[in-house]
């Protein structure tokens, strides 16, 4: 499978280790990797180029925090920019109108019929409105039957006209029918069409003209490659659609088409399809999409949280202490607090690349550190500063004071000593390593 982008960036930055700033030289190699990752995710060639240019501008001169590596910081710049381009999250579908008319448009096989059914289900279940499905794909064999079957399953009425080959007439009649029947939302399924098929593009324009839809949704397969740009821009020129729906997101595609489309037509992505069942419809999360395109775990969130929470000076002081083997229980406690501030322990540890998988099935919660904390809090200030004071009697006192037992106290002290040794061996005590270490201490 794909190599993680953050791993690649780490590699690209190996050469320039120790540099405190992102410079022209160390950025070039990185951007190459970013561009390649984007291309492998099917972001359009030109869009990827533009994108890396923008990132370069934004990255140059950024100060690298000691808590994160330059590679990680670059990932963050890239990801922020990507999320920004991807737009704001969850713009709702407009259901105003008597009735509201939703018109589907897209290539063959993009998933319009399935989406129509999902929208009907959504409108009915989540919005409490009465939808009407309209079968305007008069070309593909059994397309009408397909919609009818789905309508039956959902108990949603389907309007169709047997033998009629004029989608505009069918759609018009359907809206009249909806008014009579008191259906508040009319969902019009249409035939798939190629952007270069002039006759068919004319037909969908005519549908738009006749229906004056509340929303036109451009339905696109998330696996689409470079052509997404052509198709989206032609459909947009002809229809000026209101939103995009990405289908088949339950696959393992990186989904770069989302970025390409966003870049060329700048319309919101309103939903994603995540399965074949009628309820497999989700709102769109730009940040998640950004991460998916880049093919990485949540390293970015980790960096972000570290930036928020770790005081740079404090971190530097701590590193000195570690180097001198002076790391004590006070430091340990304050590290614990910091980690807890950063959020859910399991999530945090899971974000570390390479650690995620093993951690996933483990049972960790924020209470895991409770016993450890209680023991440390039972120590006197001298004991915290100088762990070597902790002999037999004192340990007994700690156990009863913290409501734990002597085994737990012994274990903690042993692990603390081990940890201290290990930490010393890290030349640069990185936040993530410490967290890994603490994970082990807990067990």
């Amino acid at each position, binding site marked *: 499978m794909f190599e993680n982008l953050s791993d690649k960036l780490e590699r690209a930055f190996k050469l320039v280790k120790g540099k405190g700033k992102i410079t022209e030289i160390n950025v070039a190699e990185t951007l190459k990797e970013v561009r390649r990752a984007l291309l492998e995710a099917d972001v359009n060639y030109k869009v990827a180029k533009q994108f890396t240019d923008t990132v370069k501008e934004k990255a140059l001169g950024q100060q690298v925090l000691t808590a994160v590596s330059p590679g990680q910081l670059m990932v963050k710049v890239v990801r922020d920019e990507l999320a920004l381009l991807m737009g704001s999250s969850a713009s709702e579908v407009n259901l105003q109108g008597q009735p509201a008319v939703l018109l589907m448009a897209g290539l063959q096989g993009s998933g319009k019929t399935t989406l129509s059914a999902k929208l009907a289900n959504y409108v009915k279940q989540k919005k409490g409105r009465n939808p009407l499905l309209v079968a305007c794909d008069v070309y593909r064999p059994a397309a009408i039957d397909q919609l009818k079957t789905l309508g039956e399953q959902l108990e949603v009425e389907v309007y169709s006209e047997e033998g009629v080959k004029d989608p505009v007439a069918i759609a018009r009649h359907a809206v009249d029918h909806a008014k009579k029947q008191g259906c508040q939302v009319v969902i019009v399924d249409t035939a798939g069409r*190629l952007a270069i098929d002039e006759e068919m593009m004319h037909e969908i324009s005519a549908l738009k003209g006749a229906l004056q839809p509340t929303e036109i949704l451009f339905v696109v397969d998330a696996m689409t*490659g470079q052509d997404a740009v052509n198709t989206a821009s032609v459909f947009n020129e002809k229809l000026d659609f209101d939103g995009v729906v990405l289908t088949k997101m339950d696959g393992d595609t990186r989904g770069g088409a989302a970025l390409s489309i966003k870049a060329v037509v700048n319309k919101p992505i309103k939903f994603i399809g995540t399965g074949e069942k009628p309820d497999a419809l989700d709102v769109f999360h730009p940040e998640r999409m950004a991460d998916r395109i880049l093919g990485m775990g949540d390293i970015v969130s980790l960096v972000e949280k570290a930036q928020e929470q770790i005081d740079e000076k404090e971190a530097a002081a701590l590193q000195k202490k570690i180097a001198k083997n002076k790391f004590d229980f006070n430091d340990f406690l304050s590290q614990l607090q910091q980690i807890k501030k950063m959020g859910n322990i399991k999530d945090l540890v899971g974000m570390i690349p390479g650690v995620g998988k093993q951690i996933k099935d483990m049972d960790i919660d924020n209470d895991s550190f409770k016993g450890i904390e209680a023991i440390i809090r039972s120590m006197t200030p001298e004991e915290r500063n100088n762990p070597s004071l902790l002999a037999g009697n004192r340990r007994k006192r700690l156990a009863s004071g913290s409501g734990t037992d002597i085994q737990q106290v012994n274990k903690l002290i042993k692990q603390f000593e081990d940890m201290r040794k290990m930490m010393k061996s890290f030349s640069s005590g990185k936040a993530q390593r410490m967290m890994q270490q603490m994970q082990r201490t807990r067990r």
Partner: protein
Amino acid sequence: MALFGLFKKESKQQLDKGLSATRENLFSRVARAVVGKSKVDEEVLDSLEEILLSSDVGVPTTLRIIERLQERVSRDKFVGTTELNRLLKEEVAGLMADSGNGQEDGTMPMPYVILVVGVNGTGKTTTIGKLAYRFSKEGRTVLLGAADTFRAAAVDQLKIWGERTGVPVVHQGMGADPASVAFDTVKSGVAQGSEVIIIDTAGRLHNKANLMDELAKIRRVIGKVIPEAPHEVLLVLDASTGQNALEQARQFISATEVNALALTKLDGTAKGGVVIGISDQFKVPVHYIGVGEKMEDLQVFHAADFVDALFAEPGKSMTNK
């Protein structure tokens, strides 16, 4: 070509039209930069890269093609426009598996069983309709099996194709066990003496293990009727799909031993360049291309023509050959 006759001229032009819409500038840029030079310069590499990457060829395959071209140019020296076109064609075609299939020399076993697989909406059922039309036009008896019992109205869709092409369809209705439909189809095909049996299956995403297992089971069940069958496992890929098609190929190959590809929707603006890498990496040939929604819109794949269309200058591609 014994089976399907010659590449239809008007369809070829149709294909070129789609593929070459934005090619003119790129190609002349490439030509200008390479002609009369013994070394491929930066400009030509950039243009070439742009052509290939924006045709979904993908980064690794693009780099490979460029590398091969560089070697050739430095060896052959002073390349002209015609040679450049030829070189590119040769290099790309060289990456693609030989598309020769057993059908061409008339040694097709009987019945010849084709199992059609792919992700949702790529054009499996339509391709089956087109194949049914082609084979019956060749005077062969065909039988279709409706083993997509999952997607709404999938059986009806195949039945309509059966009616259109005058080919019988074995079906057990919606919700039936697909393996059982496949078994039935092959059995009755053998009994009826059908020459070609084609089984439709439900579209499925390749990362869904249970659905891929189901497909493997369909394959096994067919083998219980005829040990060598299915003779052809045809993976249908949509030309508009990007790099994910590689993963599709990998998974479908491992579940069902795919040995042929069909590339559909080449009548659009998508180039389908990802098949070059697929064919190269997995050594599976492209057998057919789909160039429309009608039953005649199926062609036998030729790497040279495909590449031609990829790089074609408008109006010149036919004469360049």
